[in-house]
């Protein structure tokens, strides 16, 4: 364990890990990060800091990670291939490691067509698997991508990747995760799990390849905040699979004059309890972006508290 990461410690100790997610602001206000960080503190082992998610310009993930660390939380710094070439990525990662970041999530990145600068160049010098390989080599072989020796202190990240069990072709999804693990992924956070049947089938395929023994798999979850949000995720977000029963449950709560948000939290807790039972699931990644205040309640009700360390 080179990284010194708390998340890595929790996972390697065999405890069920919990990560949160924090989207940096579309401005230069550090207080936004601090406020969200305080909501998550004590409920999670580490917090993902997104790298301009959905290709919208936000405070950089590395800068936001520093602010998060000042609040006493550990970041999982996200790095995408969309906006930087290999020179910029390696340079930023040397800096991130020097600033004390210990976890790195390697992503290809959302296409810029979805963001607020659709006319930008999409760099994509490499993909997420090649990024993992490059950073692993910087850490373990002490070489830059070009093959040149990295003299002195190397970055020592605990390396993560994303996986989407709900995208197509389904038969390739477990194999793609296996490739990411060979490339260097030590932990994996999945796309939001609502379709438990498909997630279970994917995990079965992952176990058949033995991949669950080579990396820590964390199931992605989020509480649906409203019926509209659930419908939007179902119909408008590529790669997301929201079964009708989720919407039916939220509508049921509304019709019974109950709190829909409360039911959203119930749904999330139920999903966490179900994925906990699946062999090979090592933790959950709670992505309550712009609803960070729900995380303590979810963690409490899903019996995830107190967090170790």
């Amino acid at each position, binding site marked *: 364990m080179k990284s010194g990461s708390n998340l890595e410690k929790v996972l390697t100790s065999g405890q069920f890990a919990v990560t949160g997610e924090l989207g940096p602001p579309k401005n230069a206000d550090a207080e936004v990060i601090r406020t969200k960080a305080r909501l998550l503190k004590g409920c999670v082992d580490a917090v993902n800091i997104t790298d301009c998610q959905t290709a919208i310009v936000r405070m950089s993930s590395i800068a936001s990670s520093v602010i998060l660390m000042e609040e006493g939380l550990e970041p999982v710094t996200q790095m995408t291939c969309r906006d930087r070439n290999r020179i910029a990525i390696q340079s930023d990662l040397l800096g991130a490691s020097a600033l004390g970041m210990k976890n790195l999530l390697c992503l290809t990145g959302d296409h810029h*067509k979805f963001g607020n600068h659709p006319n930008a160049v999409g760099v994509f010098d490499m993909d997420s698997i090649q990024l993992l390989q490059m950073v692993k080599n910087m850490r373990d072989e002490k070489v830059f991508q070009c093959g040149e020796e990295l003299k002195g202190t190397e970055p020592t990240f605990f390396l993560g990747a994303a996986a989407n069990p709900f995208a*197509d*072709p389904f038969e390739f999804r477990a194999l793609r995760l296996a490739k990411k693990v060979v490339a260097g992924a030590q932990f994996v956070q999945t796309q939001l799990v609502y379709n438990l049947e498909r997630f279970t089938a994917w995990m079965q395929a992952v176990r058949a390849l033995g991949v669950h023994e080579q990396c820590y798999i964390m199931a992605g979850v989020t509480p649906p905040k409203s019926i509209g949000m659930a419908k939007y995720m179902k119909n408008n977000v590529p790669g997301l699979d929201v079964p009708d029963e989720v919407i039916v449950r939220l509508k049921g709560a509304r019709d019974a004059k109950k709190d829909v948000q409360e039911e959203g939290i119930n749904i999330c807790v139920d999903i966490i309890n179900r994925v906990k039972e699946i062999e090979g699931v090592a933790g959950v990644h709670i992505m309550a972006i712009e609803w960070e205040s729900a995380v303590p309640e979810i963690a409490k009700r899903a019996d995830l508290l107190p967090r170790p360390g």
Partner: protein
Amino acid sequence: MIVGQRKPIQEIIGMLKGIKKILILGCSGCVSVCSAGGEKEVEILALILRIDRKKKGEPVETMEKTLARQCDTEYLEELKGEAGNYDAILSMACGVGVNYLADMYPTTLVFPALNTSFMGVSEEQGVWSERCAGCGDCVLDRTGGLCPIARCSKRLFNGPCGGSQNGKCEIDPNVACVWQLIYDRLKGLNQLEKLKEIFPIKDWSSSLHGGPRKIVREDLKL
């Protein structure tokens, strides 16, 4: 072939402001095949420009000519004696032709009438689509003959991203996910093993990122 599309007419009219005598120069190569810049399109564009100028009371004299190709010294040399007779040449070739005209005739104004769109195929009458990005280092032996550089929106090398759904790309439901196509094709060919290998990070120096490209074949030089 190189597929092009004529620029919006107002853009062409705008760039030719003040030009009184112009050669509209077509190309019988790719852009003629894709009905963007051949002899027929030259004739139509010349007519539109004359009508527009006549209406504005600023008549323009147009000459029309279509070369076998505008990307070849041999054919462009045909203009040697006359290039100086015009205020400008409006090329209906792809960007290659426009550039070569400018290279060969340094004192003549040259304008592009087309947008050079991509290297692609003619799927059916009136439909063209991209197939090759000209990266200079072909990878098609590893991807079942289907190009992830030209046809994947994120230029992925190691399989479909999390946005591949029902065979479509996340950026547009009308765009096929090439990785789904590659998967299906390799499966059909019993070569899925190929997708398990990690495709290493690409050397882009043979692409435009290495600067303008040039090939010299000593064995063919005269």
